[in-house]
């Protein structure tokens, strides 16, 4: 499994890079409004009621479903940042020997989550 990971390392690193860069940039506003301001009532949650949420998340520009693409990136990319950093954290605490199996499991979780995330966006 270590060999397989080694072969895929450039791809994994690429996904991680997108996760930390794009994921971070997209998550900030999402967490701020949906996770904090709306639940606290500082922003009226009715501003994102079912009808408007449907509209907003299917906004397209010049025929490109831009909102859905951004939403998919927001759901999928952080998982790759998460998987990669949890893996290196575990290595730093002496898990270099078990890295093959641990890394594989973490990236499998990210893959499953990515499929779920794309499914969720497609299901809107």
């Amino acid at each position: 499994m270590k060999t397989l990971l080694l072969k895929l390392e450039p791809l994994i690193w690429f996904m991680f890079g997108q996760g930390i860069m794009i994921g971070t940039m997209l998550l900030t506003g999402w967490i701020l409004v949906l996770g904090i301001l709306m639940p606290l009532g500082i922003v009226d949650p009715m501003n994102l009621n079912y009808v408007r949420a449907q509209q907003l998340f299917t906004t397209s520009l010049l025929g490109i479903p831009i909102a859905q693409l951004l939403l998919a990136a927001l759901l999928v990319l952080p998982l790759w940042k998460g998987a990669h950093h949890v893996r290196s954290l575990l290595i730093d605490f002496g898990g270099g020997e078990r890295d093959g199996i641990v890394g594989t499991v973490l990236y499998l979780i990210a893959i499953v989550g990515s499929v779920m995330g794309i499914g969720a966006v497609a299901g809107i």
Partner: protein
Amino acid sequence: MSTTEKTIVISRFDPDQDEAPRKQEYKVPCDPSWKVLDAVNFIKDELDSTVSHRWSCRMAVCGSCGMMVNGEPKLTCKTALDEYGDRVEIEPLANFPVVRDLVVELDGFMHKFESVKPWIKRVKERAEDMENFNEKGTYSQSAEELGQFKQFSMCINCMLCYSACPVVANEPEFLGPAAIALGHRYNLDTRDEGTEERHEIFRGEGTVFSCSYANECSEVCPKGVDPAAAVNQAKFGAVIDWAKGLVLPRAPHAAD
């Protein structure tokens, strides 16, 4: 000049007698102008001639005198003893097997160092490629081209970066900061044609992708080489070459 007495704690290990490294304390009258290395030399010369340590130039170019000073890798000839309190702990470089006292085993490092092929590689040798030479028979290179890699060629192989790196501590295969920085230095050199081959090495067993960008190597580097920059630039190059390799055939490698 007035001296202050400091307790210098040296990590001792004699493979013939000691099961494991032990600590030994020395009371040393320290001159305010001293570097940490001066205190170790004083112990060796005046107090205990059995203490073993490496040093040579005393001017931060030979890279021999790297040691852990209060838990941080330091070039001891460049580190003022005054920066520390009355008790200074000196240990051999972390993450290296210890040969004796403050002397560490270098062969592992040398092996990693060589494995990135740190020399100029050409597909065609000079005799076959005269049109690319200038009249003096050398490959010409502008100051700007030199500037792209000069920083990475300032490494003195003191190995402090290997002691600071959390990945080196846990992944023995990892090529490590200095070796990757040196390989990257040749990749940036306009005279060199071995980039693709080195990128393959970078994707191999000692993969650059093991680096988790702790940036510790650059924090401890006494020469401002910034190995972390090199390693992470190398990742970028290794990914581009990898993606190219998926669609384009590979060119033959230059001879070593």
